[in-house]
């Protein structure tokens, strides 16, 4: 299989970043079609498509859409999670910069389907270019009656706003994003079954739909070409439909965003990206830095799909696919990863706040040459105490990679602990050692 460009079809064509160009390329036919449909029919179409959340969790999108009250009492909000912060993932950035109208159209269709009144795009603070592109596109959409009052002459009115984050990974967690959007501290909130679902009581305690940029961007295509057609993509997999954009980075010859159909072997993704650069493949993190690392033998057999990746003990995640060549020091990689999560922990719950720092301290000691016997077991134990015990998934995200690095590459940790130096002696690797 090769690349299948659906969302990124016109990413090379700056003309589609204007309304005229986007329409010429077939844009806004989805919205026009949706506005003529029953609201429930739009949701059913999304159900038929089998679309699953592209932010990382892979939750069936239609269940969220269907969860908002049909009898509207309070205003409904539609949120777009554009706080793309997972290390190794940069697909949403590209989608917003090169296809802003696709996202706006998707969110407008979603707003129509769930009787939304206002939409917010919560953009990662560093994504200035994406925010600028969206600002321009939103202004143009307003000027052309594609947003605002009585869209396209119907009685559907819908506003769309941009909100820039202030630099926190945690705010990509949907409940923390809502806290942040409301002007509160970027900390996660209680979730079901401890509190109502966002679809019942989300932002400002109003029914709220929240999806990822890529999920919303799929919607115009699903409505335009039909859910059944969309479901034919990735039909070879167990339960993953459509396309997925992978941000391929690391030691590859052609890093970048690659859109593929579900069911594509991971190996082919590596080939699309020009193969491994500077040596043999040593490891791959297929779905963003919080996903467990896998070894080349697993890369050879892995099929991209939400369930299929589980067979090699990893996950699709957000699609931040990182390949590492033989000069990579896995312990240093683990050290960097641990630092990232300790830095981004919001501090709300005990396991994540204390556990991530402890893991960093142990890793710091190991890479400073002061590792001790038992450190690997201790790291795993600490990670176990964080995993599943934390308030939100950030704790899991911090624990999984550390556990996987130790499980997959115990010999490297043992070497570091025993010798106080890296087992990888190539120049490329040594350059990383502090």
């Amino acid at each position: 299989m090769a690349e299948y460009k659906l969302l990124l079809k016109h990413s090379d064509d700056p003309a589609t970043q204007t309304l005229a160009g986007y329409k010429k390329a077939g844009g806004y036919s989805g919205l026009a079609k949706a506005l003529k449909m029953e609201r429930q029919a739009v949701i059913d179409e999304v159900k038929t498509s089998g679309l699953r959340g592209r932010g990382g969790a892979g939750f069936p999108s239609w269940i969220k859409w269907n969860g908002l009250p049909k009898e509207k009492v309070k205003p409904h909000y539609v949120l777009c999670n554009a706080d793309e912060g997972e290390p190794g993932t940069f697909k949403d950035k590209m989608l917003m910069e090169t296809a802003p109208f696709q996202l706006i159209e998707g969110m407008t269709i979603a707003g129509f389907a769930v009787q939304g009144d206002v939409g917010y795009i919560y953009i990662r603070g560093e994504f200035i270019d994406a925010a600028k592109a969206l600002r321009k596109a939103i202004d143009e959409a307003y000027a052309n009656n594609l947003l605002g009052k009585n869209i396209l002459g119907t009685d559907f009115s819908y506003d769309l706003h941009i909100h820039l984050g202030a630099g926190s990974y945690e705010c990509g967690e949907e409940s923390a994003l809502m806290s942040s959007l409301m002007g509160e501290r970027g900390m996660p909130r209680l979730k079901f079954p401890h509190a109502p679902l966002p679809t019942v009581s989300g932002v400002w305690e109003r029914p709220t739909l929240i999806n990822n940029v890529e999920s919303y961007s799929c919607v115009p295509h699903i409505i335009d070409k039909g859910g059944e057609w969309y479901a034919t993509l990735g039909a070879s997999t167990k339960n993953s439909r459509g396309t997925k954009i992978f941000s391929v980075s690391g030691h590859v010859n052609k890093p970048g965003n690659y859109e593929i159909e579900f069911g594509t072997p991971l190996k082919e993704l590596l080939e699309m990206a020009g193969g491994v650069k500077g040596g043999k493949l040593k490891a791959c993190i297929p779905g963003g830095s919080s996903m467990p690392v896998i070894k080349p033998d697993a890369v050879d057999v892995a099929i991209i799909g939400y369930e299929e990746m589980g067979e090699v003990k990893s996950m699709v995640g957000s699609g931040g696919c990182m390949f590492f060549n033989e000069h990579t020091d896995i312990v240093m990689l683990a050290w960097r990863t641990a630092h990232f999560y300790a830095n981004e922990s919001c501090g709300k719950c005990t396991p994540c706040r204390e556990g991530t720092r402890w893991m960093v301290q142990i890793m710091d000691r190991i890479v400073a040459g002061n590792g001790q016997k038992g450190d690997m077991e201790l790291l795993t134990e600490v990670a176990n105490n964080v995993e599943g015990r934390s308030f939100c998934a950030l704790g899991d995200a911090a624990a999984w990679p550390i556990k996987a690095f130790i499980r997959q590459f115990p010999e490297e940790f043992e070497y570091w602990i025993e010798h106080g130096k890296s087992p990888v002696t190539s120049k490329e690797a040594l350059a990383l050692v502090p």
Partner: protein
Amino acid sequence: MAAATDIQTVNIIVNGIELAVPKGELVVEAVKRLGLEIPIFCYHPRLKPVGMCRMCLVETGMKNPQDGTIRMMPKPAAACTLPVSEGLVINTESDALKKDRKGVLEFLLINHPLDCPICDRGGECPLQNNTLFYGPATSRFIEQKRHNVKAYPLSDYVTLDLERCIQCARCIRFTEEISGDSQLAFRFRGNKTHPITFNETKFTSKFSGNVIEICPVGALTNRKYRFRARPWDLQTSEAVCLNCSNGCNIWFDHRAGKVVRINARTNEAINEEWTCDKGKFGHDYYNDEKRLETPFARTGDELQKADYATVYAKLLEAFHGDNTGMILGDSLSNETYITAQNFFTGQLGSHNIDYRFSANQAKGASTVDNSIASLELAKTTLVFGTHLADDLPIVFLRVRKGWFNQGTQVILATDRSDEVSEFAAHTLVYKPGTEATIAKAFAGQVSVADAAAKCGISEPELQAAITAAAGATVITTTSLNHEAAEVLKALDGNFNAYPTGANERGAQLALACDGLSALEQLKKAANGELSALWVVGVDLFSVGLPREEVIRALENVDFLAVQDSRRTETFYYASVALPMTLPAEQDGSYTNCEGTTQQMKAIIPPVGQAKPAWRVFEELSIRVNPRMPFSQASEILASAPAFA
């Protein structure tokens, strides 16, 4: 309130035991019905649950209603945030949970300084207790502990130790949800997260002392108590706070006969489990170096130590008939008021006995329709002419609780904005002295336009507030302008003019006040027309009267008797003086603003030769007219029909 049968219950299974509990109850509360206890840190029954500390993790599952099979969840869940639902299965004890609890405690302890031997909380610390029951015995942590600010003075009363802090946010949530001043917040993130005031400004909450008590570690400590005792060295006794009329229940912690600290004692009907800072930190007067320890009698220009017999003789010589007066403070015991009335009017024959210093207070006595606890259920509340957080702090917390929990609509009419305006739907700030006009506007007796112009309020604002206040529960104090009080009393809703003196209500019940008022007595004294004046438990220089008037009265009265616990300014004008015990040094009862009479037993020994005022009155009384005197405070209360 709903009848018991109306409460919806759900069936849950806790550790294999089936039970029915009210729907929506939190798991951490529901398991208490079986006598089980789940360890907690951040959870507090009076604060909204947040699920931060992860100490209360339990195993959860669901029972399938069809086939009865139980499916357990892969991850443990926080019991403090999980509401019960039909078929919920809870396990509170298992090997996995033991490990989880050990894990959480290990995390909490790795950066905790473990300076328990010098920590005020040591000995009564939830972190110590939970560690003892659930924690690891040793640490696997060999890295550098996180260092942070220690002994940071947040205010004159509260010290913050950030190394001991476990980031449970109880203090932050208290200031957000209960006191409403929101002065504390988290700063920074990740492992640097810590609570602090905004911009490190002074923590000026009027309820700051409560955060010390709800802190589950020694991060927030009491500056007045810091390093003064270990908890196990203290004796603690039930007491009632007499610093205002709310009558908060307190724990009176004392050591070697001296008060060391005050903590809140739970009483759902009055203070729940809170105190105000005046109550928590304002008990220094027990240890005042100016305590009066012996009787005094004047010889020429000098006050000299004397014995009771001498002073009694002088008193009985000076006081008889209607040309003498007695002025009492408003925080004395009911027994004092009862015996004072019996003795002064019954035995000495003077009706000039009074406790009130403001003209308004003298005209209208307190009227109470609402108990403190019932205030939180009011639909609409009109707070009129009082600064609740200062005058009646616990009533303030109830009014705010009503607004926070039930959405009580609060209307404030006062001469400056205060803490109530933070949550009031309407705030009317009137010109001082225009209370009666604005009250009449509420009653429709003057036009809104006229009232608005006179009181300096915009007309639409006043109109909106008046409309909103229909049928409101009125809260004010006895010192409100009498005319305004009468108008408000006649309105449709409940009317509460709460007394502000600690036992003003008791004085009102016990004293007839049918002679000269306190102000009239002082005026007469100033003109040299009063032969003797007896001042009990009040410093005339601190009741808001002009100094010159007080001096003139005290200088021109022939004979001045002062009975007080300390050498007040009034004391220095005395002809004779008698030492008086303070509430914790005597048996007595006190009636709070809502009319609840609370007993208090003697806790610490009296200072020097100090006696309860009622005992002095009894001893004098039998000298006038021999009979069997009252020997116990309880006999006196039982003898008074007003307190039946």
